[in-house]
């Protein structure tokens, strides 16, 4: 089964009258592991938010599991780049993770036993079960990020969108985390889209790479072309390309 779980056609996104994404075309197949790279302000976060229906397209078409983003996001687990919240806000790690189950529970009801078991398991997966009853604002940045990963996993998503999920996480845990993603892809057949600045990590784990700076460069493969990389980053390739093995980087057509 090789259907497209995400299909984007001629997508334009404008934010405050500025074109942030221009003519994006992207198809992601079930069980793909896609890495997205690009410079700051390139539009990576905007692209993910458009897939989630948080940002509305100016033009073009976007389908998640064949549906509109508003409907299709039910199948998506999302780890945002930043979560803006008040560090004093009275909520525990446990309560945060449970909110990932919101669409699986009914109104007027408390979280079920199943919700709780699943949340417990997700906290174990990210090694945060010891912090269960701590206030979220009292954790370190990396610990917090791991809680948000658990929150994304508990809805048992078919698609996982991760916006620089490991930006603050120490390297042993980072490695474990990417192993976890690999497992989710292989065993649970998840489709994963990972935004990262770490081209080394990207090329070690993903099976396809897209490059974005307002425009998207994507060849449904793990290859990036040198001239495209230069166009995207606006600088000589050697400044960004150390982590990239030669099989990834391609000279020209």
């Amino acid at each position, binding site marked *: 089964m090789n259907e497209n779980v995400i299909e984007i056609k001629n997508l334009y996104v404008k934010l405050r009258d500025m074109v942030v994404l221009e003519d994006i075309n992207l198809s992601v197949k079930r069980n793909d592991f896609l890495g997205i790279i690009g410079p700051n302000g390139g539009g990576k976060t905007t692209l993910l938010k458009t897939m*989630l229906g*948080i940002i509305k397209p100016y033009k073009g078409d976007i389908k998640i599991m064949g549906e509109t983003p508003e409907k299709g*996001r*039910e199948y*998506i687990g*999302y780890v*945002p780049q930043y*979560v803006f*919240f*008040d560090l*004093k*806000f*009275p*909520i*525990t790690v446990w*309560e*945060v993770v*449970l*909110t*990932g189950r*919101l*669409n699986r*529970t009914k*109104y*007027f009801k*408390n*979280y079920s036993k199943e919700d709780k078991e699943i949340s417990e398991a997700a906290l174990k997966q990210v090694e945060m079960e010891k912090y269960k009853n701590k*206030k979220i604002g009292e954790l370190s940045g990396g610990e917090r990020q791991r809680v948000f990963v658990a*929150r994304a996993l508990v*809805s048992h998503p078919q698609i996982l969108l991760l916006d620089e999920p490991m930006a603050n996480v120490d390297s042993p845990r980072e490695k474990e985390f990417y192993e976890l993603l690999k497992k989710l892809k292989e065993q649970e057949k998840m489709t994963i889209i990972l935004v990262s600045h770490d081209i080394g990590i990207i090329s070690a784990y993903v099976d396809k790479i897209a490059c974005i700076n307002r425009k998207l460069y994507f060849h449904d493969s793990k290859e990036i072309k040198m001239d495209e990389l230069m166009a995207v980053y606006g600088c000589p390739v050697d400044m960004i390309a150390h982590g990239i093995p030669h099989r990834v980087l391609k000279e020209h057509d």
Partner: protein
Amino acid sequence: MIESLQFEFFRNGLIGGVLASIACGIIGSYVVSKRIVFISGGISHACFGGIGIGYFLGFNPLFGALLFGVFSSFLMGEASLKAKEKEDTIIGVLWAVGMSLGIIFISLSKTYAPDLFSYLFGSILTITESDIKLMIFLDFFIFISVILFYKEFLAICFDEEFSRVRGLNVGFFYLFLLFLVALTTVLLLRVVGVILVIALLTIPSAIISQFFHSLKKIMLFSVLLGIFLMIAGLFLSYFLNLPSGATIVLLSSFCYLISLLLKR
């Protein structure tokens, strides 16, 4: 002290104070943690417009306040959801419009408005049996709503964007929360008046939230603290012969100051 309890107005005042504290502690906990103090101040002041219209057209000013409170909470909520960058200004304008409408309608009404002052600053001792019935009903409604939507309210207060991604109707729940703020304002009107509502809504929860980190506990202890402050303030005002609403607010503020020093 015992003889003061025998006066019916004093007893009604106490009961009213306790009823107001319940809504205050519950909704105040949301107001403080979600940091919607300003918007809540806007809603409570806009209510004054409704009070004026009530006087002018000759119906119970509390219903006028309810009408204006609900309507303005809706407008301000929409502004905050759809025009974030203008939110502050819109709230400020509605705040002032409500107060001005109130003054104009009161000056237009032929009858003299003797208890106008009590709507501005409250007069807990003029609370009537029918006020108490209305307060019980509003408390009950607020309590049930929060029990039914506890997890949804908590989720949108913490992270609106993620709640939206999880399919929650964030706009609806946010407006509903502001609607409950409007109801709480009406509940508090007779006790402390439009100008002082915001103090009672925020102070008990602000004190308690420094010491607990579960919203449920903050709600529970804010209610208890509110009841204590209300009763203590009422007796204080009785013995010192001072206006009740202002005394309660000053006592609460004093406790807040102490809690800040303790927490240092």
